[in-house]
Each structure stands twice: as C-alpha cells, then as structure tokens.
C-alpha cells in the first residue's frame, strides 16, 4: 500500500501501516543521531518541543549558512542501527510516530514500536540530493554545539519519500525477516 501522510500523525494512522508499505511524508521532521539521542535522553526535550505524532529522521545533513538563512544542500539517511541503543527509550519518552533512516533496527526498537504505536521506515541510502529536494525549509536548529552532523535540525518536508516501512507496530520487521542468518553461507 502507498500512503501520503501529514504530521502530526495519529496513533490509528500509524498502527495501520505494515512492513513493506510505501509512505510519503508532509510536515515537520527533526533529525537526531548518536550524540543528539544521548543528550535528549539525559537532559530531556528542548523546551517547547513536542514530538508526539512527529517524524524523526536519522540524518546528519550538509547545511550552508547564507545571509538569507539556512540552505539545505544534501540530506540523506544515516545508519539506523547505531541508534538502537537509544531508540526504545526515545519512543517511550516522545510518542514519536515515524522514524526514518537506512538499514534495519533491532529487537528493542521493534518491541517499543509495538508497545507505543510507532514505525521505522527506510529512505534509499546515499540519495541525499533527492531527499533534500523534498525538504522545503530548514525551520531551525537546536544543539548546534554538537556539530553540523549531530545537531537537531528541524525540517519542513513535502511528499518526502519513498519511505519503505521496515518495522511496523504489529510486529512486522522487513529487514529481520529478509536477513536473519539462514543457510546461504
């Protein structure tokens, strides 16, 4: 199935999604990587930031600072598995609806997706200019002291995709199903 979704998403919308579905996102996305997750879980959300129903993008973009403001250059996904250590806690604390990255995620994230009604999806890795063309605005940045890749960037997206649902809220896990060690060796 193909879905065109807007943020904030409702729990009902997210729970309908199934591993293998294709999603296009319009609305607010925030980026976080390793350092950002660690700080978020240690210090809590920055004041005034409500992530319920929002989209988390595993991404460390290239952003040019121009006089007119931020200009997004390239913004493809980063390896989601690095964030496995943090993601279940992050889902529980924020109520985030959709997490976008590349590659698979592990059992803890899968369990949290099921419990809290969240979904992990993948955008084709390395397709950073294609991704950036679907992000219409850099609305802001928080924790810039972490450096450009690790800071929390706030994006407005328009039909951002294709995002393939990898882990759904009903126990589906596309990557795990495909790549569990079988007898291929």
């Amino acid at each position, binding site marked *: 199935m193909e879905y065109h979704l807007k943020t904030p998403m409702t729990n009902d919308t997210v729970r309908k999604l199934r591993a293998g579905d294709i999603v296009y996102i319009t609305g607010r996305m925030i980026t976080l990587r390793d350092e950002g997750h660690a700080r978020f879980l240690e210090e809590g959300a920055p004041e005034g930031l409500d992530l319920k129903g929002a989209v988390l993008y595993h991404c460390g973009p290239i952003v040019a600072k121009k006089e007119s403001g931020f200009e997004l250059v390239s913004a*493809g996904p980063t390896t*989601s598995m690095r964030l496995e250590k943090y993601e279940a806690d992050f889902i529980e604390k924020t109520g985030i609806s959709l997490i976008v990255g590349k590659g698979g995620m592990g059992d803890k994230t899968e369990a949290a997706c099921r419990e809290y009604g969240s979904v992990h999806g993948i955008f084709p890795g390395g397709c950073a200019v294609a991704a*950036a063309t679907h992000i219409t605005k850099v609305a802001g940045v928080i924790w810039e002291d972490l450096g450009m890749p690790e800071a929390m960037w706030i994006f407005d997206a328009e039909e951002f995709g294709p995002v393939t649902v990898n882990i759904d809220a009903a126990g589906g896990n596309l990557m795990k199903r495909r790549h569990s060690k079988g007898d291929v060796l």
Partner: protein
Amino acid sequence: MKVPEERNNVNDTAGKFGELELARFVCHLASHLPDDVEERVRAMAKKETNEAALKTYGCMIENMELADSLKRPLCQDTGIPCFYVKAGSDWPLLGSLDEIIKSAAAKAFRDAPLRPNAVDPFTGKNSGNNEGPRTPYIDWEIVPGDELEMTVYLSGGGCSLPGFAVVLTPGEGIEKAKKLILDRLLERGVNACPPLIAGVGIGSSADIAGKLSKKALLRPVGSVNECENAAALERELFKKANDLGIGPGGLGGVESVLAVNVEFAARHPATFAVALSTGCWATRRGTLKVDWDLNVTCLSHRDFR
C-alpha cells in the same frame, strides 16, 4: 631536481595546482560517481526484477542526475577525505605535495560544501572544518619516475562500518576468512548502502591486511587480480555475496555487490591475517595523473575537464 624556468616560483605553481585542479576535482567527485561505478550501478538496475529494488535503483539514478544538475554532494556523508599518493621520486612538486593536498582539501570543504566530519575520538568534539589529527588522511607511496598518480576517496562512515581486520591461525586460514567476510556482509551490509564494493586484504598482520583491503576497495570495478588464485577467490566471494540477497538498500534483489576485489601479501608461517573494507553504491573515488609539466589527466571521470 629540475625545475622549468617558467615555473621557478614553486609555491605559486603548487598553489595553482592544489587550489585550482585538485580542489576542483575533490568537489567534482563529491557530486559524481566514477565511470566504472556508475556504469555498474546502471547495469545492475537493468538486470533487477524485484519491485522494491527497482524503486530504490530509480531513486539512486535520479539522485545521481540531481547531484550533477544542482552541483551538490550526492551523499550528505562526504566522508573523511583520503588521498592515496603514488608519486614518482622526480615529480617536481613532491616536497610541497603534503601542503598542496591539505590546502586543496580545505578549499573543497568550503566550495562543495563538504560536511565537517573530523571528530576527536576522546572528547567527541567535531572540529568543524574537516581537519584533525592525520585528517585529511594521506597515504604515501614513492616510486621511480617523474609522474604523480593520486587516488582520492571520500571515505564515508556508514559504508565503513562493516569493516574489520583479524589475525587468524593458518589452520583457520582461508575458509574461516571467507565465512567471516560473508557473515559480516550479511550482518552489517544492509546498513551500509548496498550494493557494496567489498575489498579484501590478506597478509601477515592486521595492519598489512587492513591497508591491502582498502587498496582492493579502491581498484576499479570490473578489474581482476592478476594472480589466478586471488582472482578465483574474487569470483567465489562475488557469487556468494550476491547470493546473500541483500539487494539495493537491503530490500532484496538480484545482485548485492558491485564487486569483490582481493589484494594480498605473503603471510607469515604462523599467521593468516584478513581484513575487509567496504564501499557503498555511491563510492566516491577518483584518480588523477599529473605529469612532470603538471598536465593533469583524469583516469576515473570522463566528464572531469
């Protein structure tokens, strides 16, 4: 060392070569795949039958075209800039080359723009300018002659994560090595922007195997090791890696690797060291040849002038 009269101001000449040619080349290769990689990706897309894989290839090809037309880095991870120098001992700017490379890398960082990726391993602090200890990374090989051949590689993070080096016993040897490589490609390959280039190095110790695995990764896609035993290992691992069914983006597909290249050194009677270096489908690697008169020829990108 002979210096042509019209070029007696070496600093000025070095500046022109570094700031103009080399910096421009680094920017170019941040936005363009080398010909061999692009041709292989397009050929794999034509062979593909899996629907999700076809969609992923479509996005990859669209991205290549957008990066070219918008002149932007095709992946936001512009890596750690690595320079593999093979310099003739009589090449006229050899003594200035370290400085030329560093200033070109700094200019490319501003012009492309590249992402600041140099992080202090102890404090976690990003330097903000892509410079740090041994960064940009420069590997030196000095050979007889008066020409320079230099391969530049923007070594990404995600695509480097499957890498490893290990020293096995001879009893474990090649069979254990093959299993470790395929296990690692299966376990981590899906996250590293497949289809991948796998570089395998074999030698007597971890450092030698590791360096050779990177040299293997940097060899052109479609090239074959001159040694028949190494070529046979390349063919075997290529077939088995493709049989893993990872596909583009890890969504399954007909093929999973662009290439498997092997480079080796003699091992010690007591050791069998093996290493794996991996590159993503968007392997940004390019090679320049610079003669004694500083005429530059690009060996990797036909569209670089």
